[in-house]
């Protein structure tokens, strides 16, 4: 009963607010009337009776307030009232509101967008069932052999493997296509825990020779090429000259191992093909922990299996192979590198938001000064300090909610742009959306922001000295403390800007250095194209040589083409064949690692077309392109320096393991950035050698099948698109089943290879430019306000003979002092913080003195400029007016 009455009362009080208010008014009036009656009866004149009754009664507003409080609905009611009042303030000061909301929208919008990235890439679990049971092998490379061994032996894991970045010729259709896909172990899909949308996934044993002529399509390929026809299951397509049965279609959201993969074929696991099985290229190995198994048990098992695995190899391996083998979560493997970058970006926008908060807090402080009287009046009418604070904080949260709403819009519209700024091969970009977690983040951010920037001004305002501010009668009697507060806010702002701009400076400097690295070849006016016959096509002796020489001859005859050559893989992407090599002068000790070198298989004009200089000896000529002449190689400069320091390497010999012929070094050529602009060569490689197409060393069993995947490089004066079109015609004319793909200028490859660093630098620069602008506005605001406050003082100074120049120095000096304080704090913080981004830098130390000094100077100049504008205003103060106004 009591509960009901209580509830009933509260509800009535809440919803019949007006009626209850009137009721309370009436009740208190009735009380006063009775009191007056009593006094009149006692003989007082009515005037005096009323005055006396009022005095005895005390503050009506206070009583009302306390009565409302005792009704218990005050919190909600006050909140509603505060919000109403806040809205009124927001609407009444459109200028102030616009500036504050825009500032906050920038800060919150940037944070929302970047958090969406972090959320999608780092935080969201992988789209597989029980994603935390998925692990990936680390600390060693796996070929088919060791993978098969692990899969057969492991009790704790369902081990699967995939060879990504594979491409397949799809022929037997009107125009041959080259499709990106992946070769995967038969248990790949079952280990990931995904099922097919149509048909089925691979079954156990389908990665064994004889049963592996099957293929699974991606949803996109099924959609584009087959119009989602369900009868596609069971039909056959021709991939790389092999007819495969389509057994399944994956759902649209399945995009592993990469968004580029359009089909999956089984790995060809043939233990009899020793070279392919034990020595072929490395594959990522992943696994699902079996029910009940922990990652620790799996690690232990992996360590225990190391020695037996080594024993499986048909040739001795170095004893320390897989010594560091371990496991990590699959998620970590996929997003590992991206995490640092994204978290640093998130940190940057977080700092940006702090600056925005400081700016709005400053605006509020300035406004609090003008609202001093309002606060004083409310206090006098009985509003408690807490009540005043609550109202001011409500106002600021209201501002931040408005800012957040606008910022949310900014983020939703800006997110696609942000995503397009990131390199296209960034992992999990498709998972980046504004989801519930992002919305929750924004909501928390809005409230937190409102409290952060509202607290200081509110605290200051609620501490109003009643008598003084009421007496001061409209003078801007701002407490000195408030101004000190706003100054420290500006110092903080400048400090944060310094940190951000230094970060951006370091990134931009490394990008600049990176872009100006000499890649070792002439990148201009070169067009590249991949021309790739089926693998089976080249197995017939001499067929591919004829094909390519025919092709090169026809392309050379094209008008505008001055030079043309072919290579087994372009630089800046690790293209080429990785081979174990014996160096005659450097035999490897038993149990030590092989010399692993990158073989660039080239047609004889490659060096001159690419502009790679011959430093010693000679280049390649037509004689070298025959298996019947002397077997020769060229080595790169750093390879020569590694194996033959101080000696002329010409005449020295090297041999590809498992081949009998020794090859004589006939020349030394310039170094080329083979891996990326930052990394000349992958760390597991010791060097690079060039072999003429025709004397190729082919990995594996030693058959002399030349690689089918060659890339054409063409130097021309023609438009690229025109040559591209001609090329399609020429290739079709020689062999109708050979696709031509990846037609792109070499310059584009150079640009693409710094896409990652560029996007980071660009984003960071954008955010720090915003920070710089906000910081400048912050200084401007505080100095302007101080000039306004000191108008009288300036007037007196001028009246006493101060010259405008002196005033200018006075005001600008004030700004400069704030700036220097901020810069000092900022530089010290940056020294500690930029270390976090060392991994993103190239050629620049995290504490690069030039960047630090330059940024300090920049900030100082911005501060001077920002205080110069109000200083000019101060200079023009008319002493007479200034003295009169106050």
């Amino acid at each position: 009963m009591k509960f009901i009455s209580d509830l009933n009362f509260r509800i009535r009080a809440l919803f019949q607010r007006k009626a209850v208010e009137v009721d309370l008014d009436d009740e208190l009036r009735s009380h006063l009337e009775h009191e007056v009656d009593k006094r009149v009866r006692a003989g007082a004149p009515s005037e005096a009776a009323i005055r006396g009754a009022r005095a005895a009664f005390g503050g009506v507003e206070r009583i009302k307030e306390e009565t409302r409080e005792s009704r218990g609905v005050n919190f909600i009611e006050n909140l509603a009232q505060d919000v109403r009042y806040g809205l009124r303030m927001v609407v009444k000061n459109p200028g102030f509101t616009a500036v504050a909301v825009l500032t906050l929208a920038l800060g919150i919008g940037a944070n929302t967008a970047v958090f969406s990235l972090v959320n999608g890439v780092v935080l969201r679990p992988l789209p597989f069932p029980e994603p935390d049971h998925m692990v990936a092998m680390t600390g060693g490379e796996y070929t088919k052999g060791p993978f098969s061994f692990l899969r057969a032996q492991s009790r704790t894991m369902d081990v699967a493997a995939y060879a990504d970045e594979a491409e397949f010729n799809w022929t037997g259709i009107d125009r041959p296509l080259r499709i990106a896909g992946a070769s995967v172990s038969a248990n790949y899909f079952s280990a990931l825990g995904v099922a097919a949308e149509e048909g089925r996934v691979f079954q156990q044993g389908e990665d064994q020779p004889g049963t592996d002529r099957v293929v699974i399509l991606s949803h996109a390929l099924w959609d584009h090429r087959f119009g989602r026809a369900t009868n596609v299951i069971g039909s056959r397509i021709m991939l790389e000259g092999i007819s495969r049965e389509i057994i399944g279609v994956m759902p649209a959201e399945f995009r592993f191992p990469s968004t580029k993969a359009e089909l999956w074929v089984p790995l060809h696991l043939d233990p009899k093909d020793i070279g392919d099985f034990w020595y072929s290229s490395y594959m990522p190995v992943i696994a699902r922990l079996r029910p009940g198994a922990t990652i620790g048990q799996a690690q232990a098992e992996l360590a225990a299996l190391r020695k037996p695995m080594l024993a499986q190899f048909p040739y001795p391996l170095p004893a320390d192979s897989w010594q560091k083998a371990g496991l990590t979560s699959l998620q970590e493997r996929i997003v590992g590198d991206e995490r640092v970058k994204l978290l640093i970006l998130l940190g940057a926008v977080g700092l940006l938001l702090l600056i925005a908060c400081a700016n709005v807090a400053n605006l509020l402080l300035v406004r609090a000064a003008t609202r001093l009287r309002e606060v004083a009046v409310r206090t006098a009418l009985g509003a408690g300090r807490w009540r005043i604070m609550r109202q001011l904080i409500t106002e600021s949260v209201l501002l931040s909610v408005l800012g957040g709403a606008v910022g949310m819009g900014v983020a939703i519209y800006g997110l696609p742009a942000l995503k397009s700024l990131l390199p296209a091969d960034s992992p999990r970009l498709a998972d980046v959306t504004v989801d519930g977690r992002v919305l929750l983040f924004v909501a928390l951010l809005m409230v937190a922001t409102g409290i952060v920037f509202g607290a200081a001004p509110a605290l200051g305002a609620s501490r109003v000295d009643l008598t003084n501010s009421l007496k001061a009668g409209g003078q801007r009697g701002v407490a000195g403390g408030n101004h000190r507060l706003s100054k420290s806010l500006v110092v903080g702002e400048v400090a944060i800007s310094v940190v951000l701009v230094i970060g951006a400076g370091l990134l931009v400097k490394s990008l600049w250095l990176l872009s100006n690295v000499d890649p070792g070849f002439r990148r201009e006016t070169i067009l590249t194209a991949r021309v790739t016959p089926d693998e089976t096509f080249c197995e017939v002796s001499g067929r591919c040589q004829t094909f390519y020489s025919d092709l090169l001859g026809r392309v050379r005859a094209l008008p505008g083409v001055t030079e043309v050559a072919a290579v087994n893989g372009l630089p800046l992407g690790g293209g080429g064949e990785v081979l174990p090599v014996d160096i005659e002068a450097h035999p490897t000790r038993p149990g030590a690692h092989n010399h692993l070198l990158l073989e660039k298989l080239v047609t004889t004009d490659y060096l001159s077309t690419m502009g790679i200089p011959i430093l010693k000896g000679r280049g390649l000529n037509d004689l070298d392109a025959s298996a019947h002449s002397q077997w020769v190689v060229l080595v790169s400069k750093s390879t020569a320096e590694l194996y033959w320091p101080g000696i002329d390497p010409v005449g020295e010999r090297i041999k590809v393991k498992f081949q009998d012929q020794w090859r004589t070094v006939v020349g030394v050529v310039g170094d080329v950035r083979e891996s990326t602009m930052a990394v000349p060569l992958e760390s597991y490689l010791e060097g690079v050698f060039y072999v003429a197409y025709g004397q190729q060393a082919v990995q594996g069993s030693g058959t002399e099948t030349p690689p089918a995947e060659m890339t054409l490089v063409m130097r021309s004066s023609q438009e690229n698109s025109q040559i591209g079109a001609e090329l399609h015609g020429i290739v079709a004319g020689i062999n109708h089943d050979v696709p031509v793909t990846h037609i792109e200028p070499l310059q584009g490859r150079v640009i693409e290879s710094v896409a990652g660093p560029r996007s980071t630098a660009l984003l960071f620069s954008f955010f720090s430019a915003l920070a710089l602008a906000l910081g400048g506005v912050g200084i401007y605001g505080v100095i302007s306000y101080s000039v306004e406050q000191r108008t009288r003082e300036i007037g007196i100074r001028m009246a006493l003979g101060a010259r405008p120049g002196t005033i200018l120095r006075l005001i600008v000096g004030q700004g400069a002092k704030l700036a220097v304080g901020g810069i000092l704090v900022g530089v010290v913080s940056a020294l500690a913080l930029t270390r976090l981004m060392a991994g993103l830098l190239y050629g620049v130390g995290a504490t690069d003195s030039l960047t630090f000094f330059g940024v300090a100077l920049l900030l100082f100049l911005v501060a001077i400029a920002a205080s110069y504008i109000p200083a000019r205003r101060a200079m023009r103060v008319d002493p007479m007016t200034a003295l009169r106004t106050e």
Partner: protein
Amino acid sequence: MTNRNIELPQGTLDLLILRTLAAGPQHGWAISERVQEISSDVLRIQQGSLYPALHRLERRGWVKPRWGTSENNRRAKFYELTRSGRRQLELEKSMWRKLTTAVAQILDTI
């Protein structure tokens, strides 16, 4: 004793109001007058605490308000004790007695 009035101890205001209303429905001003009168002007209820207290009692369901006409022929809001209010009064009365007896005992003994 220079001060004619003494401060009401915490919690006694509710008791006084309930007791006053036990004699019949009464409005705010009359309650404060009555308390002052009966206590020979020793106790004086501040309006600042009277009305919050009345509304608190109403919220708890111990009193029920009703607009009526006062002896001065003026509109006034009368508060009437509810049944649970009566129970509460008995409870608070016995608590108060216990308290005062205990305090008196200590004062007299020591």
